């Protein structure tokens, strides 16, 4: 939403968030080092570094993967979503350190190129218990690289939000590869049963939350509105929408947010132009509909971002009859002015 690209878009909230991430990571690493040295004094520094950063990366990845469904189930988690990108980049850096140290430790002593060595030092691709698990880690790291390196609004815009979103959906593939990397690695390394237990629990948590959130959204989509004689759809009563808030309805396959601003109603397409955030879960702040994900703003009466910004979403016509709100399912062009209607 800026007029030139900045290194990082920081504000006070994001700075505090980043400090918290950095502090958490450092604390985790210190605790990991101390515990490793206390419980097993013979462990080499390299092994501790490899394990500390590998486990840190997978913990951060879990956090990243639960944020999405958590915010859909309970908006109180939104502040964590707000800066998820920085969490993603931190996770990649931790995974990179783990991968680079493992590669240096296990694959730079021979005459082969280290990357080739990751793939060929163990050729037991048909085995389960002796599978070359490091290959899976390497492939996951490639995906994480693509995601972390494109975590900037420049790419969102120049790759197009659709491609960007698809690339970032690869996080689920990366997650699967990493789970296999750790499980198959466990046959060959003395990974503790505790770590395996935590990983299983994490898997149940992530799939459980995704399914619950999908079920909740399915309910919105299966909403059937009744039509009046003009083909307008009755969606709710005026009292059901709180001031400065919205309700979301799926009308002929499109999600629409109906907002109440200073007692008047306006309807816009529910999908934020930035990364598809659910506008109807946001609030009206200073007269602008504010996306709950990263704060892009739109004016309720025309779906346009306030100048100098240029984002626009579709708008819809509303009417109120006997306290019932009706939506005209035929959308207007993006950014079309529609006079808000009184309840």
């Amino acid at each position, binding site marked *: 939403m*800026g*007029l*030139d*690209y*900045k*290194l990082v878009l920081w504000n006070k909230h994001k700075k505090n968030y980043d400090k918290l991430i950095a502090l958490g990571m450092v604390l985790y690493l210190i605790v990991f080092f101390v515990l490793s040295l206390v419980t097993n004094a013979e462990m080499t520094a390299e092994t501790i570094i490899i394990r500390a950063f590998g486990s840190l990366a997978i913990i951060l990845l879990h956090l990243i993967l639960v944020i999405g469904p958590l915010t859909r189930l309970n908006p109180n988690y939104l502040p964590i979503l707000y800066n998820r990108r920085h969490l993603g980049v931190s996770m990649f850096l931790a995974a990179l350190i783990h991968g680079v140290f493992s590669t240096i430790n296990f694959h730079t002593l021979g005459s082969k*190129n280290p*990357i*080739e060595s990751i*793939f*060929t030092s163990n*050729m037991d*691709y048909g085995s389960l218990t002796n599978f070359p698990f490091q290959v899976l880690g390497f492939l996951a790291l490639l995906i994480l*690289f*693509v995601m972390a*390196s*494109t*975590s*900037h609004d*420049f*790419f969102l*815009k*120049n*790759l197009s939000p659709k*491609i960007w979103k698809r*690339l970032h959906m690869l996080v689920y593939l990366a997650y699967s590869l990493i789970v296999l990397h750790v499980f198959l690695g466990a046959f060959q390394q003395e990974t503790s049963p505790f770590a395996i237990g935590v990983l299983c629990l994490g898997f149940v948590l992530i799939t459980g939350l995704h399914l619950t959130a999908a079920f909740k959204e399915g309910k919105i989509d299966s909403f059937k509105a009744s039509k009046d004689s003009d083909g307008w759809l009755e969606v709710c009563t005026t009292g059901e929408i709180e001031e400065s808030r919205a309700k979301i309805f799926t009308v002929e396959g499109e999600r629409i947010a109906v907002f109440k601003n200073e007692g008047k109603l306006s309807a816009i397409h529910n999908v934020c132009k930035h990364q598809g955030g659910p506008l109807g879960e946001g609030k009206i702040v200073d007269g602008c509909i504010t996306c709950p994900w990263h704060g892009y703003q739109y004016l309720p009466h025309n779906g346009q971002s306030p100048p100098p910004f240029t984002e626009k979403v579709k708008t819809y016509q509303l009417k109120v009859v006997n306290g019932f709100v009706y939506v005209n399912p035929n959308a207007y062009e993006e950014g079309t002015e529609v006079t808000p209607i009184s309840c």
Partner: protein
Amino acid sequence: METVINIFIIALGLYFGLGLLFGLYFLFAGATTIDPLMKESKKVVRLLLLPGTIATWPFLIGKLFQSKKV
């Protein structure tokens, strides 16, 4: 299996090599023609964008050609 692995690694190397060449051109020249925000952007910002350009250059190259046509 060895050949598959060799081809994969060479392809990966080529992808990143070409990506680096394209990325340098794109960030310091090409992108300014398709994204007006790039004109004002500082050098460090462009360097920060380099890894991502290397990673996704096939998508960006298409966009550059499209914009040249219009």
